[in-house]
């Protein structure tokens, strides 16, 4: 019930924000703020829930919350919402980044603020739904629903090339989504031929004894949909365009949480539903991940557009997640989750900075910046922090994620580990060069720029604290997601022992 309440609060809040515009153009953002805080309040008690143990395939799994109600009984479709440590972490990240997105657009939106906030809230609602749905139909429903408001955010409030970018974003995710729908249905029918009844229930579909050939094709449908969203090389081409053209708030949400739905899907669905088939493709997927890491980093180095640079760095960082998931070891899974959270925070912050720069300078071109530290010391220092975090400095969250992934992958595949590690070097180069070009060097023009104000500094400091916390004391996060990862892991490798937490 609590999960439905969170999603409903966001949906209703979106409507109210839209209606509020009729009264006063300043109201929508306050309604949004209130909505996000309210849903945040609803999330907090979830952390103290007692786990319930449930049979998942051949193993047992721990869930914090399960809610089920019939929806379309004809096909065995139900409102099956469930929450475990992994989902909870993702939902918390979603709500927090929603707050960041709202803060980043606080004074930026002049045109139709009500509809803007409506779309913002609905994106959050859709993503939250994705993270807590365990009925495959319901999951697909939210998967598609989160696209529409995001499309509007890019298409209406985007920058100069918004038509192209929004269309590309929608097409890539929608078409790959249809492949997933096909796979879902084929899986359901395969299950029906065994059990005799329709079901979209994750708990019933996990651990089916599928024919190897069929499983491989079905896995591919899921894999493509999630890898497009992740985005993995070579399906990443929508991302630089979408990120660059999107308004700041949408970039923050895209990078911070929408990409994570892809990683979450791989973790939750692709591998557990089709363990054998996923292992067959694992080598390939890790290779794609490693190529993504290096390619993204090299491309980031070549960009003049600050937002495009961050977008390519996302491709690079999410490549690590892809490697980590398909290496499928205790260390790499923990590392992938850590990388998802840390990347969510650091990239969201960088996009917020890029948005703030564009708001002040009306350009994203690095060659027109330079010497900005002098004008905006606060912004410069904060940017340096996130640039450093992004390149993987020990002591911050990103380092923990990438290090664990590489460490774990080393036991599986040495060449891929070595190759992917190159990405870390290039990351240091492009990140520092970007910092250099924007904030150091000679001032290009005499500008009277406004530094970060209290609102911006406040939200930035929150994210900085988060990254430092993740970097020096990651254990609580590991403990939180361990039961989920353990049950997923044992599901696919029943002969293995879960080596245990990183203590």
């Amino acid at each position: 019930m609590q999960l439905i309440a969170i999603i409903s609060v966001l949906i209703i809040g979106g409507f109210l924000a839209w209606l509020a515009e009729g009264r006063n153009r300043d109201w929508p953002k306050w309604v949004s703020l209130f909505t996000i805080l309210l849903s945040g309040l609803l999330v907090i008690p979830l952390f103290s829930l007692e786990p319930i143990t449930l049979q998942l395939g051949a193993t047992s799994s721990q869930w914090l919350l399960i809610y089920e109600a019939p929806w379309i009984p004809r096909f065995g479709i139900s409102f099956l919402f469930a929450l475990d440590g992994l989902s909870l972490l993702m939902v918390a990240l979603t709500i927090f980044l929603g707050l960041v997105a709202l803060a980043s657009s606080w004074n930026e939106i002049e045109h139709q603020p009500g509809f803007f906030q409506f779309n913002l809230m609905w994106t959050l609602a859709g993503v939250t739904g994705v993270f807590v749905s365990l009925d495959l139909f319901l999951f697909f429903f939210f998967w598609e629903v989160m696209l529409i408001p995001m499309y509007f955010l890019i298409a209406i409030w985007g920058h100069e090339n918004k038509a192209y970018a929004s269309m590309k974003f929608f097409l890539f995710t929608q078409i790959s989504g249809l492949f997933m729908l096909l796979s879902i249905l084929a899986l359901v029918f395969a299950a029906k031929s065994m059990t005799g009844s329709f079901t979209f229930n994750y708990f019933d579909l996990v651990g089916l004894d599928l024919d190897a050939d069929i499983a491989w094709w079905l896995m591919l449908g899921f894999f493509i949909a999630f890898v497009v969203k992740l985005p993995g090389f070579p399906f990443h081409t929508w991302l630089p365009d979408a990120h660059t053209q999107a308004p700041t708030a949408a970039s923050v949400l895209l990078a911070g949480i929408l990409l994570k739905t892809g990683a979450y899907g791989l973790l939750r669905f692709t591998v557990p539903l089709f363990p054998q088939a996923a292992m067959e493709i694992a080598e390939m997927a890790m290779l794609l991940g490693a190529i993504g890491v290096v390619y993204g980093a090299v491309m980031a180095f070549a960009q003049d557009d600050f937002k495009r640079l961050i977008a390519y760095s996302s491709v690079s960082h999410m490549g690590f997640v892809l490697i980590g998931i398909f290496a499928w070891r205790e260390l790499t899974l923990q590392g992938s989750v850590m990388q998802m959270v840390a990347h969510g925070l650091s990239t969201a912050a960088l996009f917020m900075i890029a948005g703030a720069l564009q708001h002040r300078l009306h350009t994203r071109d690095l060659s027109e910046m330079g010497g900005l530290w002098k004008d905006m010391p606060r912004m410069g220092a904060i940017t340096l922090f996130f640039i450093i975090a992004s390149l993987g400095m020990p002591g911050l969250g990103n380092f923990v994620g990438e290090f664990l992934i590489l460490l774990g992958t080393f036991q599986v595949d040495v060449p891929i580990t070595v190759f992917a590690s190159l990405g870390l070097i290039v990351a240091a180069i492009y990140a520092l060069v970007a910092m250099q070009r924007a904030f150091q060097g000679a001032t290009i023009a005499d500008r009277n720029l406004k530094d970060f104000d209290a609102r911006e500094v406040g939200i930035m400091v929150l994210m900085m604290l988060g990254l430092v916390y993740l970097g020096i004391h990651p254990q609580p996060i590991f403990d939180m997601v361990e039961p989920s990862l353990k049950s997923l892991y044992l599901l696919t490798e029943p002969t293995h022992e879960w080596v245990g937490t990183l203590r």
Partner: protein
Amino acid sequence: MSEQQLVAILPHILLSAAILVQMMVIAFARNLRTTITVSIIALIATGLAFIPVYSLIPINVTPLIILDGYAIFYSGLILMSTLAVTLMAYDYFKDRGENQDEFFLLLLLATLGALVLVCSSHFASFILGLELLGVSIYTMISYPQKGLLTLEAALKYLILSGVSSTFLLFGAALIYAISGNLQFAELAPVALVTQGAGELFLTAGSALIFAGIMFKLSLTPFHMWTPDVYEGAPAPVTAFIATVSKGAIFAVTLRLFSSSNLIEVPAILTGLSVVAILSMLVGNLLALKQDNVKRILAYSSIAHLGYLMVAFIAAGMIGGKVLAVEASSYFLFAYFITTLGAFGVVTIVSLGNQEMDAGDISNYEGLFWRRPMLAIMFTLTLLSLAGIPLTVGFIGKFYIFTVGVTTMLWLLLSVVIIGSGIGLFYYLRIIFAMTKRTEVNAPEIKIPIAGGCVMATITLATLFFGLYPTPIINLINSLVLSIT
């Protein structure tokens, strides 16, 4: 004819009587408000007359007509759509001068034709219904008599429709030649003939029947008339052609091929697969190049009928019939709602323009900021056409996928995916145009009361049945499966 049979065709009798009354009313007291009132009462009374029929089904009335759950479901769909079209047409015609009353007479006649079609169990009633529907539509297309486009549309539809009817008749004659029978259900043994001249007659006959039907359903390669007629006809008439006419013809076709087992002839299935693939690709690809919303909707309807054919083909596959009939019924239900919504918006936007319907996409620029409610309705309809969740169109597409997966039509399904992908381009183009910030010097759009109510109902239905399709699924399962 027994008393029961008389009750069973009471809806048809009532509607026929209402048409006569309507004629008298127009002759003696010409007044648009009166005419429309008679029309609405006639439609509602006809609908109510189906209630006593429900306890009698299935019942044959002469060899020509059968009333079963399937017929009732589609009759209900037709009557509701006609009601919506009537209200839209009222808004459309009320400010266009004198002598608009006969239009509503024609609309009732066409509806009667459609009702006969969905109840027919014999080639004679099939052709009768088809012509009643077709002849009324020619006149309705050219009714406003404004501009060359309208005339062109009417003439094209007249000629092509005439040609297609001859195809159909000749096909029926060939089938009659080997079976000696014109009743659908009696044809079943013939479908098993697999050798000699019998097979040739059977295949040729079915192919000709299908050619005729494909004209009416605007399936490729017989789709050429569609964009011109959609563009030239008044928006409410286009809505009627797209929904009632196509829906009724599809319903009778499915009944013919399902109850006669003709659909299981392999050559026909192969041919239909080609037609379905071509329709999905041609419809979606040609829509990309259009700048006229009515033409885009025309091509999109070609593609949608292609999707529908996937379910039709599935009905011919082993073990697919029950689910296929269910799927095509839900898909058609969704298609009816969505198409009526789309043309409802076009009608409302066109009200300020007497010369020509507001087809060009520039008419819709900035609609989001000028008429937010109307734009949201249109967006929902377009998303429903694209098959995006939250809308009834998604459940329709879900059904197509479901039935395709059950009968393992992988090739057709991959074309559905490609087609849907291409489709997004032009649906999003319209949505994007509506979100443009440019100031447009378009005439202000007034939302009429009748049209506004229709649109509100359609929008609510789009959302409601997209989120909670169970009532319709149950209705379909209790009624429609009677033909399988």
